[in-house]
């Protein structure tokens, strides 16, 4: 049993640098991540906000194991993810799933909805055919997709429906942590609202924890318990939404908030919400 008091995910002093340039050219270093510290509690939602190039995608890649950090540690349920033993890492990584921005390449155009959702189960060889089918239908119901659609292809669905499909797929392995990398970006406002509600609903039902990565502060303000602002590879401020909005300390946070209020007043000026 995993004690609820311990943080689900702990990032300590994570550093990653990239070197650019070919072997015969002078090389420069890019500090993608510098001494990043984060804590995510069970059942909580942490938002990571920063502009493009701030390092948030690099952090996501390190968390899921696609990149190796140069130094620092990542602990999931107390166990270090940088442990060289592959089997344990693979098992742990199954508990963390990643949902991308709804784009054309996010879902395979050649697979049906059912095939997409059951793919993780197939790869891991976890259940027999019958059970896989049941889990697929269960997942579709949970995300609000009609089960009659199980043979539809992604291009036959709208952006919001595709995102629901991606969420269903992510839930197939029954993870504890969902990483959402710009998962709401690019969707219509009303759809964003629907998906946000779905995510909150799933969180309560399954006790999920979310790490939400975005460049848009306003989007995450509603759902996050804590917001961490990242800039040039460093966490410059971390606080709960109320504190952040009322007393932003770092100029970066202030800039982000300013753009939010600017768009808000622009909307209000035009008489809409």
């Amino acid at each position, binding site marked *: 049993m995993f004690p609820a008091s311990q943080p689900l995910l702990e990032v300590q002093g994570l550093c990653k640098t990239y070197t650019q340039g070919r072997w015969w050219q002078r090389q420069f270093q890019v500090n993608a991540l510098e001494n990043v510290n984060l804590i995510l509690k069970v059942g909580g939602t942490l938002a990571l906000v920063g502009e493009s190039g701030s390092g948030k995608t690099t952090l996501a890649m390190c968390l899921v194991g*696609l990149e190796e950090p140069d130094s620092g540690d990542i602990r999931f349920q107390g166990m270090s993810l940088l442990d060289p033993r592959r089997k344990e890492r693979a098992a742990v990584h199954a508990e963390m799933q990643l949902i991308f921005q709804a784009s054309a*390449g996010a879902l395979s155009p050649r697979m049906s909805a059912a095939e997409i959702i059951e793919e993780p189960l197939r790869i891991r060889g976890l259940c027999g055919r019958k059970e896989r089918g049941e889990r697929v239908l269960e997942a579709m119901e949970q995300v609000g997709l009609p089960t009659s659609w199980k043979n539809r292809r992604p291009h036959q669905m709208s952006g919001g429906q595709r995102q629901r499909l991606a969420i269903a797929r992510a839930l197939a*392995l029954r993870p504890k942590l969902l990483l959402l990398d710009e998962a709401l970006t690019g969707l219509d406002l009303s759809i964003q609202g629907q998906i946000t509600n779905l995510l909150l609903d799933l969180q309560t039902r399954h006790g999920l924890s979310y790490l939400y990565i975005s460049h848009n502060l306003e989007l995450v303000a509603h759902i996050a318990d804590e917001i961490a602002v990242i800039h040039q590879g460093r966490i410059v401020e971390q606080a709960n939404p109320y504190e952040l909005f009322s007393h932003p300390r770092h100029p970066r946070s202030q800039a982000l908030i300013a753009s939010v209020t600017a768009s808000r007043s622009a909307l209000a000026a035009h008489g809409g919400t």
Partner: protein
Amino acid sequence: MKQNRKIVVLMICLGGVHLVSLFAGFFSPYDFAQQDRDFPYLSPSQIHFRDAQGSVRWRPSVCLLVERPGDSGAYDEDKKKCFPVRFFVRGAEYRLLGLFQLDWHLFGVSPPAKIFLVGTDGYGRDVFSRLLYGSQVSLFSGLMATVLSLAVGALLGMVAGYYGGWIDAVVMRCTELFLALPWLYLLFALRAFLPLHISPILAFLLLIAVIGVVGWARPGRLIRGVVLSGKENQYVLAARLFGGSDVYLMRRHLLPQTYGILLTQAALLIPQYILAEVTLSFLGLGVGEPAPSWGNMLAALQQYSVLVSYWWMWAPGVVLIPVFLSYGLLASAMQARAAGMTREE
């Protein structure tokens, strides 16, 4: 879409041709090696639809040939001795696909009459039968060599594109090397280093191996390109995150992306390879006697007398034109379809 219909029609036609080729034993009245030294270079048999009395009959018939007295080498028909052409006759034995022993033929005439639809060659062998048996060699060596080229190219291209790094660099340099060599010369040189006189079956397999291996570079590069961009798709990344192994990703997600290119390349390469086999056999470097190949049948035309006087000996060459035309149209249709699809994206 119009292109799809064209593609389907062409593939059915080509499929039909290949099917007839496989059943060459059934469709041809005689064995390919059956000689009739009395009748070399005979022009195609005349088919009559009238009987001796002059009335029309639905069943075609062929008349016996006798040598013109005083003019050996010239033949006239003996109109009094005509034999009907019968269908589904039993004749010389043959092996279907090398497995089944059969002796049914689509059509034939009872001896001593002979039916030579496209005349005979220098040894008195039926050109029509040789044409059909020869199609097995020419058409299928092209087909199988293409499969080999595409298999090698796809394998190396996929590995190079997926793993990148030094594997990619090595494979790319190899493709450049192979592309830098003039194809036909390389083919000839490779052939040169293998024993000259080998059995037809061995020659057939050897040709397929040589032609196929020499041509892997172009499809290899194209596949590599597809894989390079294809692996960036997020669903590939997602599958990796679910724990998919490299092999799984390549098989399940990247390989299907290459199907379009593989088919188009096939339509382009098959005619080239058929031509390569025909050329090599024509020059005596491919499949040799007594096995027929459209190439070695055309070799007879290198003799002046044959070239000028016996027009039916051109049949193996003329037959190539509709085959190549079909493949050419197929390739164009496939390319047009691919271009249309990318425009839609």
